[in-house]
């Protein structure tokens, strides 16, 4: 116990001294770790949000809302509904009244209900929500209903052929760009941690010489520097974790109020995973950097 405590005490107090003895370099390495982890955490959350959107769009994809002109009487709308139901490509048609459309609209997250009340009249059209057997038929249905006099003109339907493809492409581009950025920053941060450790070793060269002379083991000499590297990783990670942890919910809420039709949601479970990944990655950066730092000088 005494020996273990001595080893731990020596490693931590030396690491602490090392950190402050070359404070400028140490703080630079904390900052770079912080930047890497912030980028990593943000990227994971952005990609996750895009995934959420894609998933929701896919469930909506087999349906199309046909907006009815306000002048269309209910009986004509019902005839039109029946006509559509007889189409072999269609599996179901639901009528949504103006009031139901408004009720749905009110359900959108982050929309202030008082704003809607100031509108006075209900601007939303009634619609026929048509579900098709095969997504590829959506375009044809859209073409078929678009020119009917019963249908509203602005817009006629909510058919947007490429929206999912666009989101998937966006996610892919963001993912690749983010990955390239993170790989680059990771290399840079490992390099800077390595330099920090080398500097610490240089400043302690006399102690190390004496330690080897009086018979300290290689690991006893190494530990303070490994601990210092881990410390850099942990401090950078903790700062980044706090920012992402506390910043994610406000960011989602703000985006929801700007992009009111985009189905963003706050995912507590995924956030925890991301924060754990950030902390783990910070420790990894610290240990790899310090391992590379101590590797050479201990070969003697």
């Amino acid at each position, binding site marked *: 116990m*005494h*020996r273990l*405590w*001595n*080893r731990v005490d*020596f490693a931590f107090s030396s690491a602490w001294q090392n950190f402050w003895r070359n404070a400028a370099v140490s703080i630079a390495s904390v900052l770079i770790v912080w930047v890497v982890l912030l980028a990593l955490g943000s990227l994971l959350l952005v990609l996750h949000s895009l995934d959420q959107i894609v998933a929701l769009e896919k469930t909506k994809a087999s349906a199309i809302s046909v907006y009815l002109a306000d002048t269309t009487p209910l009986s004509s709308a019902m005839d039109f509904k029946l006509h559509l139901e007889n189409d072999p490509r269609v599996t179901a048609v639901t009528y949504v009244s103006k009031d139901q459309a408004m009720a749905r609209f009110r359900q959108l997250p982050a929309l202030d209900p008082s704003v809607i009340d100031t509108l006075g009249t209900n601007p939303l059209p009634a619609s026929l929500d048509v579900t098709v057997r095969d997504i590829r038929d959506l375009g044809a249905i859209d073409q078929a209903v678009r020119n009917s006099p019963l249908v509203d003109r602005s817009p006629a339907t909510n058919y947007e052929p490429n929206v999912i493809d666009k989101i998937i492409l966006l996610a892919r581009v963001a993912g690749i760009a983010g990955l390239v950025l993170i790989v680059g920053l990771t290399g840079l941060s490992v390099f800077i941690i390595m330099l920090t450790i080398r500097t610490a070793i240089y400043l302690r060269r*006399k*102690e190390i*010489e*004496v*330690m*080897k*002379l*009086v*018979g*300290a*083991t*290689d690991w*006893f*000499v190494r530990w303070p520097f490994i601990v210092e590297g881990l410390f850099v990783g942990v401090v950078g990670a903790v700062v980044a974790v706090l920012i992402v942890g506390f910043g994610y919910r406000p960011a989602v809420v703000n985006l929801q109020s700007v992009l009111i039709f985009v189905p963003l949601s706050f995912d507590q479970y995924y956030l925890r995973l991301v924060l754990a990944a950030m902390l783990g990655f910070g420790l990894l950066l610290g240990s790899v950097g310090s391992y590379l730092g101590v590797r050479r000088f201990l070969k003697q």
Partner: protein
Amino acid sequence: MAALMPVVPLISLQGVHKQYPNGTVALRDVTLVVPKQDFVFLVGPSGAGKSTLVRLLIREEKVTAGKIHVEGQDLSRLKRRHLPFLRRKIGMVFQDFKLLPNLTVFQNVAFALRVTEGALRHLKPKVEEVLSIVGLEGKENKFPDQLSGGEQQRVAIARALVHDPKIFLADEPTGNLDPATSWEIIQLLLQINARGTTVLMATHNREIVDVMRRRVVAIEGGQIVRDEDAGGYHAPALESR
């Protein structure tokens, strides 16, 4: 009389060659046996190979050919992870003391125990014991730059003694000291030797070697040119008396 008894010598070198990577040959065919409790002066001009011999004994360098045994252990077959334990058997002091300037006398000596994971409970009595051997009681809280050269070398000697070494290697320990102080250090080494520790001292100090009349091993050009008990700094024929 010792020669009649088949004992394992503490240190033995057999046909040791040392060539550095740059091609310099530092030692050639050196054979030397040092029994327990011996006191040996290593003499010879600068660059003769004395320091190389010292470095080979603590395995800071490896032999190019030949064998070195310490307590019967073959140093060329010693694994790197066992090296620290060899170093704990060998106390070393140098011309430049190698003290840590930001630590006190007590801390400098205690450092050697801490970094070799000596149990902290025994640290204080052990440090006090070795400091009293070298006669530095009362100076525990001084820093090296508050001490004279002789006192600094005593701190270094105390530090070398904390592991109760079997071998004490001194590389020019009086090189930076005035004659009176040098004699004090030599007295201390004799005391250490009298307590049962084998002492090897590399030196240029002709006066000391001549007066002491101990075993002298002279090295020149990487070879042992003379090995005599109760010898002088120079070979008898060259001595002017």
